[in-house]
């Protein structure tokens, strides 16, 4: 899958009316209206009470599967584990051939060749029913290494065949107010996503909202990630608690909606970590549909970063077709 073809950094200069340095970014990001935490959480809770039944539920379950980035990010990952993950991604439910495939598999950079090889002909653009390979890069999850290592990490994964790069922002720099540095780094990583043929790998910018702490920070970081050229903004690495929450995702969707109003560009959102139940995932679908609109429910605009979610969705799906619940032994572990 191919990211936006814009020149990295172009978005910001037009909007800021000047260079994207600390001062200009600060003025812009701090000029955005604040977030009222109580109101935001109330709205998210309200969206969570939507009752999704019968045909809508069946559609939602299939769509969730098609939006999943099936993920393994362990120190103990091996080529065998990745092959098993890929097999699950291609055939989530061996008992039901009508079950859709997931959007992508998400692995560490050194596992990209194994994932690409295991996918074979199934490798490709999820919008065309294929499965993409996403790699976490830039010294994931902490992001604490030098810029050159981060860029090398990214370029490596892209060269190995990664279609999507999940980078982490420098939260330390962000919290210290060095917005220019965070911005420059995203721009540089985006540049490192450039392939030999001039196209770009899709860039997902992980904000690690659990470390940003306030909703105002999340909103500013979301804008920063978009201005610097991110194709997606992503909540979390999954390694820090709290990971994705509904209010945080709602807030990021609101930024994406506002960016769309402003520029006409569509940026994606990926909540990752902590979403384990179908019921919760459906709440996210409702939130997307009622905030940015239903057209965002496609793989190039919305993803779930998850591993155990898939099996719960499969169990629910089996329940909808057979009328009764089965158990964890009726779905495969990857």
């Amino acid at each position, binding site marked *: 899958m191919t990211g936006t073809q814009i020149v990295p950094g172009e978005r910001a200069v037009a909007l800021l009316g000047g260079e994207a340095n600390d001062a200009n970014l600060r003025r812009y990001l701090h000029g955005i*209206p*604040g977030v*009222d935490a109580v*109101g935001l959480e109330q*709205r998210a809770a309200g969206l969570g009470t939507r*009752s999704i039944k019968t045909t809508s*539920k069946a559609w939602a379950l299939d*769509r969730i599967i098609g939006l999943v980035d099936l993920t393994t990010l362990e120190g103990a990952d091996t080529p065998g584990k990745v092959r098993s993950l890929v097999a699950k991604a291609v055939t989530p439910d061996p008992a039901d051939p009508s079950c859709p495939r997931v959007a992508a598999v998400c692995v560490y950079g050194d596992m990209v060749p194994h994932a690409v090889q295991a996918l074979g002909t199934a490798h490709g653009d999820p919008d065309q029913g294929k499965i993409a390979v996403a790699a976490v890069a830039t010294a994931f999850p902490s992001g604490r290494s030098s810029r050159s290592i981060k860029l090398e990490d990214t370029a490596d994964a892209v060269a190995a065949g990664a279609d999507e790069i999940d980078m982490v922002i420098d939260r330390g720099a962000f919290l210290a107010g060095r917005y220019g540095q965070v911005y420059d780094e995203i721009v540089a990583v985006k540049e490192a996503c450039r392939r030999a043929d001039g196209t770009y790998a899709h860039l997902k910018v992980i904000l690690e909202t659990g470390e940003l702490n306030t909703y105002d920070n999340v909103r500013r970081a979301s804008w920063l990630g978009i201005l610097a050229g991110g194709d997606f903004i992503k909540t979390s690495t999954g390694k820090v608690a709290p990971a994705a929450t509904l209010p945080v995702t709602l807030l990021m969707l609101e930024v994406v909606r506002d960016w769309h109003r402003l520029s006409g560009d569509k940026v994606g959102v990926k909540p990752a970590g902590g979403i384990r139940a179908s019921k919760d995932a459906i709440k996210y679908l409702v939130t997307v549909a009622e905030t940015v609109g*239903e057209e965002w429910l496609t793989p190039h605009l919305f993803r779930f970063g998850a591993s155990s979610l898939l099996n719960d969705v499969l169990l629910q799906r089996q329940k909808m077709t057979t009328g009764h619940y089965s158990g964890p032994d009726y779905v495969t572990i990857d």
Partner: protein
Amino acid sequence: MSFLEYAPAPESQAILNLRSEYGLFIDGEFRSGGGKPFASINPATEKHITTISTASADDVDVAVAAARKAYDRVWSRMSGADRGKYLFRIARLVQERSRELAVAESLDNGKPIKESRDVDVPLVAAWFFYYAGWADKLDHVGLGAAPAPLGVAAQVIPWNFPLLMLAWKIAPALAAGNTVVLKPAETTSLTALLFAEIVQQADLPPGVVNIITGAGETGAALVGHGDVDKVAFTGSTSVGRAIAKSVAGTNKKLTLELGGKAANIVFDDAPIDQAIEGIVNGIFFNQGHVCCAGSRLLVQESVHDEVIDRLKTRLSTLRLGDPLDKNTDIGAINSAEQLERIRSLSDVGEAEGAERWTAACTIPDNGFWFAPTIFTNVSTSHRIAREEIFGPVLSVLTFRTPAEAIAKANNTPYGLSAGIWTDKGSRILAVADKLRAGVVWANTFNRFDPSSPFGGYKESGYGREGGRHGIAAYLKTAAPTAVTAPAKRTPITKGASK
């Protein structure tokens, strides 16, 4: 089908076990009324729900006499702790039967089930729990030691929050030691009658709570009854005025909670997405049938266009339809009469030159419905900026400075509530200080809590409900002769304090 349409998710009515007709609840039992019975209909379908009795003047006499007897012989003599036990029991029964009450409320009133389930009924339970706690602590209300109850309270409540208004009235009255005769609005008597069953279930002494049904005439007979000590009314300003007249010159104590035309003030630094939610919740909650609804939106000129644009987008996602569907945001208008009033005032708004915008939504064939509507270019002299519409209609005005916002917000005969939206804490405090409204919400709207007093300025009524003030309205200072010297304490001897 698009995902956003959502498949129907109706709440089952199977939990309801309604009778085909209901009598009056007097002295602990149901009995037939002397007046002509009337039908209660479902405003969403216009279908018959049940038949309700009308209390005649004689029935009112019997009900007040039952309340008087229960007051003299049982309730005023019972210890506060024991009264509290009954109230706690009622609160728990409300919780146990919450689903049933929510379904009945939505069926009879037309409000969406998500509101009756998540707001009305939980607040009803909260009100009884809160005042149950006060029953044995009356010394701390602020009226000195051992304040006395007033006697028999006549309570008349409106149709917008039928069961919640019942709780607002009955819970503090009983906690303070009064007995009550309550009349619900004639279009929404159902949950009050289910509450009568709860009163029976709680084994409350007969006559402590009496519920009589009927129209305005019954209400007039009740508040005008000679043996009533306290009148509490929530409803329209015109009826409130008539009650104030009828009570004038008597010894009856009176609290009135009447209409409103609240200003919801949005400053240019407001948290915009939450402000939009607040505006929506302020005026479209309960189809705008809320006396404290934020029906006048005051927006700072610099953000007016953006706010309206976002508001319209948001309103387009509201779902109007079957009140019993769990995904419905906007339910039915309670009666044909109210619908007619909303329509005619909206037409006046258009005729006066305001710009009307209505969310595109399908209106069901039967029942009473009004799509969410916004009027822009409204000026302070328009009738839609002055009169209470009591429906899902928002009038948008603009202002340039905080001083102008305050002046416009206060420029109304009402003064029940107001809202302020800004990120700046000092501005919230400064503006709230100058608003003549009983309740001021900051960065939120239409939030209720039993511990918070609620009531109005000017034509919005007098007296407060909720909190310590709410129970003080049902008490009087003990007569000076009733004060007795505290019992002498045995002095503590040295060494005994281990």
